[in-house]
């Protein structure tokens, strides 16, 4: 079944919007909970990714944020941003991380990547590949799009699959935060790559049509949006219903009456 993923970007105490990897403060945790009733929202999405893009990393603070979010929802939570040790992973796991997102680590420490996958299993690792298409060629970037990788797309995907990766997110730097739709062109470049794990597209989603456009492609397993403003309130629930109407194979959590939800689960 296909998945709709919501991604939250956290930066030094605030949730932020990103546009071409430049961020803009939106609101803190109180703002988030005010605008997104997470228990309700989690009926409209299938998964959540929380990424720490803070300039001054404070893992303990970030853990508190993850914990507060994870205690309210019962869907998978992937956590990422500056994970450079098994100790960090342990801390994040304790507060609710089910999977971790790796990106820069591919360029800085492939041994650790492999080690993480050996200890936790490859399904625990979600790889995020940031790219730009320049003159008809895919260039891979890392460290918040500041450095160009020496590996091309094919090499990167093959290597990360060998190191142990459960899912791959292809994130377009140029489409990030633009709301103009997903970069479908990238799929031309993945045609001849042997993808063994699920593929997630990210970057550019601004409205329902963009989600539909991505999910209707056979080899796209999931799409991810980090658009904090366009899906406020019960928008995700409406998106999910529209996807089901259009015969996209997503889960319908919506047939459960939210008010009855707690009553159903009172233990005898």
């Amino acid at each position, binding site marked *: 079944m296909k998945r709709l993923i919501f991604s939250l970007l956290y930066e030094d105490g605030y949730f932020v919007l990103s546009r071409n990897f430049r961020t803009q403060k939106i609101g803190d945790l109180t703002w988030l909970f005010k605008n997104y009733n997470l228990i309700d929202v989690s009926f409209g999405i299938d998964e959540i990714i929380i990424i720490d893009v803070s300039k001054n990393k404070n893992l303990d603070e970030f853990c508190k944020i993850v914990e507060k979010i994870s205690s309210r929802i019962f*869907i998978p939570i992937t956590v990422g941003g500056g994970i450079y040790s098994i100790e960090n992973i342990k801390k994040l*796991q304790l507060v609710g991380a089910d999977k971790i997102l790796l990106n820069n680590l591919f360029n800085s420490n492939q041994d650790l990547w492999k080690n993480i996958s050996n200890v936790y299993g490859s399904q625990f690792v979600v790889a995020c590949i940031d790219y730009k298409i320049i003159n008809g060629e895919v260039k891979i970037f890392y460290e918040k799009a500041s450095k160009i990788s020496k590996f091309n797309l094919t090499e990167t995907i093959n290597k990360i699959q060998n190191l142990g990766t*459960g899912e791959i997110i292809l994130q377009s730097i140029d489409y990030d935060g633009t709301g103009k739709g997903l970069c479908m062109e990238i799929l031309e470049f993945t045609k001849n790559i042997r*993808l063994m794990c699920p593929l997630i597209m990210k970057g550019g989603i601004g409205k329902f049509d963009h989600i539909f456009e991505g999910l209707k492609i056979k080899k796209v397993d999931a799409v991810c949006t980090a658009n904090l403003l366009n899906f406020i309130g019960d928008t995700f629930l409406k998106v999910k219903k529209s996807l089901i109407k259009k015969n996209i194979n997503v889960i319908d959590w919506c047939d459960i009456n939210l008010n009855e939800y707690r009553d159903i*689960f009172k*233990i005898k």
Partner: protein
Amino acid sequence: MNILIIDVGISNLSSLCNCLNFLGANFKIINNKKDLNNGTHVILPGVGSFDEFIKALDKKDLFESIKYNVLINKLPILGICIGFQALFKKSEEGNLKGLGLLNGEVKKLFLNKKTSFKVPNVGFRRLINFNKKNFFKEIKETDAFYFMHSYACFEITDKYVSCAYSEHNTNFIAALQKKNIFGLQFHPEKSQASGLKLLKKFIEI
């Protein structure tokens, strides 16, 4: 009711605890065999690789005591993901012996170019070929569960076992009950209302 959650140190327990809290259940996290005697139910959750998981159980001296409590004291046990795989005799993923509470072998999911099933098998899937009885009584065909695994058991030779399957290149056992032994290949704590229903069923036994 006193549910014991076994902590081997490499699992994500917080999501499971959040679920049990939501269900209003009494539970305790334990990591030694001494505490295993005071429970009404035991949950063996897990992520990680097979050998790492078995090693961790062994290190905490839990391996034999789990077997004893489940087989002799008939303590209801629920294995989740790797915790479920650990209930079998062995796994292709590792060299160590499993708990052997279930007669089957865990094998690697395989790829087939003609189908779209991938490895690891990640995402929400429905259950098929199950009887709406006992453990599966409340489960509907439309319920979906979150899977995140590369290995699975395809067949079991035990008697008195009821299984629910999930589709892959070869359909695998997604959930089962054999008397007081319960196993889920997926993560009920990550499967919204569908998962909560099964957890509730287990703790009401």
